[in-house]
């Protein structure tokens, strides 16, 4: 696929996605890597635009350089923004009370601890969706959940069961970067 075709497909996908206002987004493509420039009016939109671009056949990578230009309605001071983020986190039963947030010039940082990655992801999604957020950093630490007997086998089996992954003939396996500890061999 040529970069011209890829660029046109990403433009079409951004236009197609009702969650994305693509009017002020410029797309370029270079050897499969797509760059998004321009402006959107919320951080959530910025994330949705990146997600839409990643869906397109032929996209190898996405550089999301979109500016978040908040409308006056959604601008708020940091104390208020932090309050909104904490409330959003509190109202989701998946988020443990050990997760905290702070805001500085509209940039939100999540901190604290969680047991699972899905809780970290959920917190990030919730915070990113709060109006008034310019940027987001997810510093939530995972507390180790020990007790697995064979992580490699567990993950391989999960890949095998998964319809989305099984179609590829399961060509690769997870491996530890530091050698498997004895409890995981």
């Amino acid at each position: 696929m040529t970069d011209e075709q890829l660029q046109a497909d990403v433009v079409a996908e951004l236009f197609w996605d009702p969650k994305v206002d693509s009017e002020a987004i410029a797309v370029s493509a270079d050897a499969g890597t797509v760059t998004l420039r321009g402006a959107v009016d919320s951080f959530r939109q910025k994330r949705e635009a990146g997600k839409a671009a990643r869906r397109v056949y032929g996209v190898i990578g996405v550089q999301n350089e979109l500016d978040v230009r908040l409308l006056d309605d959604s601008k708020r001071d940091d104390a208020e923004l932090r309050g909104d983020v904490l409330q959003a986190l509190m109202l989701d039963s998946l988020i443990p009370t050990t997760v905290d947030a702070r805001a500085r010039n509209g940039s939100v940082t999540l901190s604290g601890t969680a047991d699972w990655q899905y809780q970290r992801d959920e917190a990030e999604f919730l915070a990113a969706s709060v109006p008034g957020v310019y940027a987001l950093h997810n510093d939530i630490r995972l507390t180790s959940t020990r007790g697995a007997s064979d992580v490699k086998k567990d993950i391989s089996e999960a890949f095998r069961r998964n319809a989305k992954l099984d179609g590829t003939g399961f060509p690769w396996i997870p491996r530890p970067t530091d050698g498997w500890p004895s409890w995981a061999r």
Partner: protein
Amino acid sequence: MDTTSYGRVALVGTVSSWAEHDEAVAAAWSARGVTEVDDQILVAY
């Protein structure tokens, strides 16, 4: 041994879309005991 290294898993290989990539990374994160996923997956069409 450093206990934090126990939970680190690297994913190495090639998939044919970002959807597959995301599915694989999510599956790895779901394993009990995993605290870090080193994502080295290539997306190739």
